[in-house]
């Protein structure tokens, strides 16, 4: 059902982090960019849509104080807002916002200067017209106002609600979903410049490593190997799937078809179909093993969910699969 394609080999191997793959499609320029974290830097590969030419570049997490080695990057992700696209890097010391090609640093938000306490940030999402949201270790979510141009990024709001470190964020228009290290999920809605809680889902102690939202359906991928499907407006559970034998490290949903991918430490990626109903449902579609690779990143390349790519710990390859 899915055919393996030629991989793209990056300049460095993939670090063991959740959601360690971000894809940015530029239809007008017929280019697709891929970002994967390698220790203290991010490897970016820009490929033409037909895959014939690949250009690699690296974005190094810039460190204002040179006294303490380079901080590990925890996540990198492109955020596409209606008026602006940026690539965001989070590390144990702060949040860095770059122009989408990684060339220029737009903004640097410091979280900590002490070496004995990490204030790591994880979870990146763009909400509404101009909000960039980033989760922190303290469980709060920082809301930045990202102007259409220039470096005047301002911290607009800090959302509190999580009692353990934020693990991932996902968004759809004005809706923001956040998850934490104990598996709790909160759904927020932006109205004007303020956010309000819409619903919340209890966790069972296992971290919710990755989130996806599609047509109001919220899906969480958990460290216990479970997928849970919720109605985002009501918080009511639609389905609980024993999906993987190890932690799920990343999930992604295709915007047009509602196809969902989950990748796990158990070397498998699995594909699912979401069914938007009052109580949302999920169906199993496909399963594939990537030999000896603990998968840490998985994304659809196109909006229909026909092409997907996965990354695994310690490997420099982005593996591609195409629906036959």
């Amino acid at each position: 059902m899915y055919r393996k394609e030629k991989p793209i080999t990056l300049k460095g191997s993939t670090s063991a982090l959740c959601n360690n793959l971000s894809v940015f499609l530029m239809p007008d320029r017929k280019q697709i960019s891929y970002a994967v974290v390698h220790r203290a830097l991010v490897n970016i590969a820009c490929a033409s849509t037909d895959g014939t030419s690949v250009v690699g570049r690296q974005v190094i997490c810039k460190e204002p104080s040179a006294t303490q080695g380079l901080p590990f990057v925890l996540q990198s992700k492109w955020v596409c807002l209606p008026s602006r696209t940026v690539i965001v890097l989070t590390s144990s010391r702060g949040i860095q916002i770059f122009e989408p090609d990684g060339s220029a640093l737009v903004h640097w938000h410091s979280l900590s200067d002490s070496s004995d306490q990490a204030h790591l940030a994880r979870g990146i999402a763009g909400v509404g017209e101009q909000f960039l949201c980033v989760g922190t270790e303290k469980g709060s979510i920082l809301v930045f106002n990202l102007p259409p141009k220039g470096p005047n990024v301002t911290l607009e709001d800090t959302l509190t609600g999580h009692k353990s470190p934020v693990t991932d964020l996902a968004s759809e228009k004005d809706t923001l979903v956040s998850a934490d290290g104990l598996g709790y999920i909160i759904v927020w809605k932006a109205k004007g410049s303020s956010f309000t809680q819409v619903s919340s889902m209890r966790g069972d102690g296992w971290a919710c490593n990755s989130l996806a939202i599609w047509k109001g359906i919220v899906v969480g991928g958990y460290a216990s190997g479970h997928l849970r499907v919720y109605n985002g407006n009501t918080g009511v559970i639609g389905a609980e799937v024993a999906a993987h034998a190890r932690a799920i490290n990343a999930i992604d949903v295709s915007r047009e078809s509602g196809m969902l991918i989950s990748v796990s430490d158990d070397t498998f990626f699995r594909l699912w179909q979401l069914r938007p109903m009052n109580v949302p449902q999920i169906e199993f579609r496909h399963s594939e093993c990537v030999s000896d690779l603990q998968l840490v990143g998985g994304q659809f390349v196109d909006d229909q969910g026909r092409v997907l790519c996965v990354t695994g710990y310690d490997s420099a390859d982005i593996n591609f699969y195409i629906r036959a």
Partner: protein
Amino acid sequence: MSCKTLPLLFINLGGEMLYILDQRLCAQGIPSEKSQKGKWSWKRIPVPILHDIVSTMFNRRFIDEVFKPQTLYSKKAMRTVFDRIAHTSIMRLNAASMDKLYDLMTMAFKYQVSLALRPKDLLLITLNHMSAIRKYVEESNPARTLVEYTYKLLIDTYASLSHGEFQLIRQTLLNFFQDMHTRVSIFLKDKVQNNNGRFILTPGGVLPFGTEPPGNIRSYDESGKFRNIGFQVVPSYTASTKEGSYDMQGDTLCSLGKNMYSVSRPVETSGTSTSVIQGSDLDTSNPDPLAKAHLDLLSQLIGAKVTKNEFRLNLFKTDQEEEEAAAPIQPIETSHSQVINIDASKKVKSIELTKIFGEMTVDVGSKGDDSDLLDLMDS
């Protein structure tokens, strides 16, 4: 990344080092006790050497420093720490043997971290190492006390951590071991490692404790009732029914972290193996000042201890093999001088370290002044 990773990395690497040394010491024997050829007792020979090493590794003040929240050392600094620790006894390792020892230690622990069923198993792996270490020093009261003190610290620090915190620790460890692909013959023989240095991850088998086998969708309706819809999962998994014990004498129910060497399964790296470090290793260019401070401390602990009855341990089958392996390698002193460039005049930087320093010199009965320690470090 997690600031609680260093103790686990340090103890588990140390545990692997002791397994290897124990096995090699048994195999090679110590010159002074070789009189009764072929008659030495396998167990007793390594004992004094292992005692010395365990006592240094678990020195109370050093362990207290290790347990303070901090970022991990760079690979180079970590390697230096173990180089120093290995040389606290009368045993001497040349550069090639030390390289081999460190490669074996790191690959063994990388294997354990990679294969751990769930992140919390890292504590069980550590406890396996701890109970083995405790057995090595059973007859030595002071060393055993130090090991038990460390055990208590481990439980205090880690037993209550959540899955999420352990997951971050596991990721931090995996990223420390990233791009290390040395082939280890014991792994190749057991078919758990590929020829390219990667571990074989066979699907199926036992599941992490507290999870359910994949293959079921619990589908809810509006009233909250559910029905089960199965889907096919090719390898079959079995759920684990019991959780490992954190008790010092208890059963961890975890085989990772136990001694994999024995007389019939000797320590060996693959003959032609080289560790492949690909990509840029940025962290080595910027030594962490904290790691340096700890190296200072450790060097002070160790540097003062000079013994004359040294003997050489060989991690290879024959001396010739060792020499051949050593030939292309940079002399160990040169590679180190970049990391441990200890300036004794700046020692006062940390009041605490100075205090510890004072304490330690009394402990080991050294009357040497700072410059002597410095000489020892660079020798």
